[in-house]
C-alpha cells in the first residue's frame, strides 16, 4: 500500500512509449524529464528532508558526466565501470566537502555551495587538457550492458526510466528509514535533534553524500545518452533550476520533487513556441504557482484532485 503511488507511476512510465511510440515528446523529452527527476529527488533529500540548501548541485551532476566522458573517451574504460568511478569520485568529494560546509547555516551555506558550483564550472572550462574546454568532449560511447548497447532513444528511455524508478524507490525507502526520521528531526530543529541523541553532523554528511551520488548517477547517464558533454550543462543556472524544481513540486515529498522536475521540463518544451515571450510566461507561471499553491505543485494538484473527486461523488446520487 505504501508503494501504491510508486507502482502507478511505474505503470505510467511503461505505458507512455507503448501508447505513443516514436513520439518526440514522450521519448526525447521523457529522457530529459527522467534525468531531472533523479536530480530533483536527490536534491530533495538534502533540501526537503534535511533542510539544507545546495546551490551547487549541478557540480555533482557534472562530476558524474565528466568522469564517464573522460574515462570512456580518453582511457577506453567500459561505460559501467566509468559510471561506478564517477559515483566514487562524486561521493568522495561530497564527503570531504560535507564536514566543513554543513557547519554553515542559512545564507552562509548557500554561499559556500554556490562557490563550490562556480569553482567546479571554472575547472570544466579551464582544464582544457582534460575536459575539452568550453566546447566540451564529444564521441562518448553509449551505455553497454554485457553487449546490449543503448544506441537509440527508445533504449535510452528504457534505461533512464528504470534509473528514475530506482531513484524514487531508494528515496522513498531512505525517507521511511531511521535515517529519514533523523533528517526530519534535524530540519525541525537541529538542537532538538541533538537532544534526542541524533548525531546531526553524521546525518547531514550522509544525506549530502547520498544527494551527490544521485546527481552523479544522473550525470553519467546524461553523458552516455547525449554522446557529448560541455560545461554549460552544469553551470549555476542549472543548479538554480534544480532548486526551482524541488521547491515548485513541493519540498519534503519525493513525488513532489519528481512532479516539479517533470513540470519544469515540459513547461520549457511547451513554451518554446512563444519565442520572445517565453521567459515572461515562464516567470509568470512560476510566480502564480508559488502564490496560489505555496505547498508546491504536487500537494496543490492532489488536493484539487481530491476536491474534484468528492464533489463528483457528492453530485451522483
Amino acid at each position, binding site marked *: 500500500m505504501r508503494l501504491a503511488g510508486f507502482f502507478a507511476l511505474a505503470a505510467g512510465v511503461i505505458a507512455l512509449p507503448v501508447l505513443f511510440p516514436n513520439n518526440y515528446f514522450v521519448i526525447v523529452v521523457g529522457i530529459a524529464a527522467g534525468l531531472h527527476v533523479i536530480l530533483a529527488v536527490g536534491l530533495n533529500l538534502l533540501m526537503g528532508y534535511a533542510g539544507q540548501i545546495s546551490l551547487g548541485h549541478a557540480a555533482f551532476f557534472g562530476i558524474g558526466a565528466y568522469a564517464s566522458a573522460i574515462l570512456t573517451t580518453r582511457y577506453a574504460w567500459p561505460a559501467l565501470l566509468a559510471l561506478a568511478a564517477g559515483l566514487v569520485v562524486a561521493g568522495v568529494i561530497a564527503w570531504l566537502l560535507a564536514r566543513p560546509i554543513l557547519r554553515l547555516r542559512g545564507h552562509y551555506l548557500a554561499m559556500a555551495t554556490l562557490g563550490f558550483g562556480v569553482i567546479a564550472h571554472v575547472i570544466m572550462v579551464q582544464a582544457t587538457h582534460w575536459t575539452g574546454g568550453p*566546447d566540451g568532449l564529444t564521441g562518448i560511447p553509449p551505455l553497454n550492458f554485457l553487449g546490449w548497447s543503448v544506441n537509440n532513444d527508445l533504449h535510452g528511455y528504457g534505461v533512464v526510466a528504470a534509473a528514475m524508478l530506482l531513484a524514487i524507490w531508494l528515496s522513498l525507502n531512505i525517507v521511511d528509514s531511521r535515517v529519514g526520521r533523523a533528517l526530519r528531526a534535524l530540519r525541525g530543529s537541529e538542537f532538538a535533534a541533538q537532544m534526542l541523541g541524533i548525531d546531526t553532523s553524521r546525518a547531514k554528511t550522509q544525506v549530502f553524500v547520498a544527494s551527490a551520488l544521485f546527481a552523479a548517477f544522473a550525470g553519467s547517464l546524461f553523458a552516455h545518452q547525449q554522446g557529448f558533454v560541455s560545461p*554549460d550543462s552544469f553551470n549555476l543556472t542549472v543548479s538554480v533550476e534544480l532548486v526551482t524544481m524541488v521547491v515548485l513540486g513541493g519540498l519534503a515529498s519525493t513525488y513532489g520533487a519528481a512532479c516539479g522536475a517533470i513540470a519544469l521540463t515540459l513547461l520549457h518544451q511547451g513554451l518554446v513556441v512563444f519565442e520572445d515571450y517565453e521567459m515572461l510566461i515562464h516567470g509568470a507561471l512560476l510566480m502564480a504557482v508559488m502564490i496560489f499553491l505555496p505547498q508546491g505543485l504536487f500537494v496543490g494538484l492532489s488536493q484539487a484532485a481530491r476536491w474534484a473527486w468528492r464533489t463528483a461523488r457528492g453530485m451522483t446520487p
Partner: protein
Amino acid sequence: MKDNQWKIILAAALLMIASLAGAVEPIKVGSFLSVTGPASFLGDPELRTLQMAVDGINAKGGIKGRPLELIHYDTGGNAREALNFVKRLIQNDKVDIIVGGTTSGDSLAVIPEVEKAGIPFISLAGAVDIVEPVKKWVFKVAHTDRMAAAKIFEDLRKRGLTKVALITGDGGFDKSGREQLLKLAPTSGITFVADESYGNKDTDMTPQLTKIRSSDAQAIINFGFGQAPAIVTKNIKQLGINLPLYQSHGVASKTFIDLAGAAAEGVRLPAAALVVAEQLPDSDPQKPVLLAYRNQYEAKYGPVSTFGGHAYDGLMIAVAAMERADGADKAKVRDEIEKTRGFIGTAGVFNMSPTDHMGLNLDAFKMVEIHHGVWKIVE
C-alpha cells in the same frame, strides 16, 4: 436537428483537411540558433536573415513551386538544448534540411545526431572541427578560426613583425582561436612572447596587458568576441602601449567600434567583405551580392553584421542545391550541396568538394583597419 449541425461541421472540417492535403506541401527548413544568451548578437541577425530570405524566396514562388517553411528554435547558446531541439526538428517537425548552429559548441553537439538521421546540415559556426575530418552530412559556411589566424600572420609578415603577444578570453571561440594561432605560428615564422588570458566577463584587463608591456612584443593579438575585446582595446590605449593591435573576425560589427570608441583607431582585423562592400572594386563579383543583401537587411532591421551573412549563405546554398536536386530529397540535396561551385555568397566564393565541406579560401577574408570609426581595406 442538433445531430445534423454536427454532421455539417464535421463535413466542413474534413473538406478543409482534404483541401490542405491537396495543396502543395512546403519544404521544411529547420533551424536552431542562439537568439538569446551570450551569443545572441550572432544568433539574432541570423534568425532575422533567415526569415527575410525565406519570405523573399516564397514571394518569388518558392522552389519549383513549393514554398519554404522555416521552423526555428532558440538554444540560448546551450549545447544540451541544441541537441534536443535538433531531435525535435528531425523527429517531430520532420524537416528536410537544417541550417543553423550559431556557436561551435551547439554545432559540434548535434553532429552525431545529424549523421545518424542522415539529414543535410549547414552549420553557421566557426570551428574547423565541424568539417575536419569531413562528415558526410555536415557542411559549414562561416570562416574558420584557422583562416583568421593565417590572415593575421600574413599581414604581420608583410609588416615585418615576428614577436607577438597573445591575449585571449575563456570562451569556446577564444580558446579555439588561440589553439589555431599557436599551432600555425611555427610554420609562419611568428614567435609568441606572451600568452595571457582573461575571463570574458572581466571588466579590466590591465594586469595582463602590463605584463605584455614589459615583454619585447612587436604586436598584440586579441582573439575573442563580445565586450571583452573592446575593453582590451581601451586598456591598451589607457596604458599607453603603442603596438599594433590585431583583433579577430569575432568583432567585425559596428558594436565593437561603438564600444571601443576612439581607442579602436588603427585596430586591424580579418573580416568578411560585407563590412567594406562599397569599397570593393566594381569588378569584384561579390560586390552586387553583398550590396543587395546589405541594403535589404538594413532597410528592414538596421546595421548589418557579417554573422547574419552566414545565415544568408547557408540558406542560399541549400536553396540552390534543392533547385538542382529538383526537390527536397535528402540524399540528392546532400550530393548537390557538395557539388556547390563558384557560389558567390557574403562570406566569399564557395567551392565545395567531397574533401572540403566549407569551400572558402583565404581570399574570403579582407584585412581591414578601423579608421575614424569606419572599416578600411588594408592594401
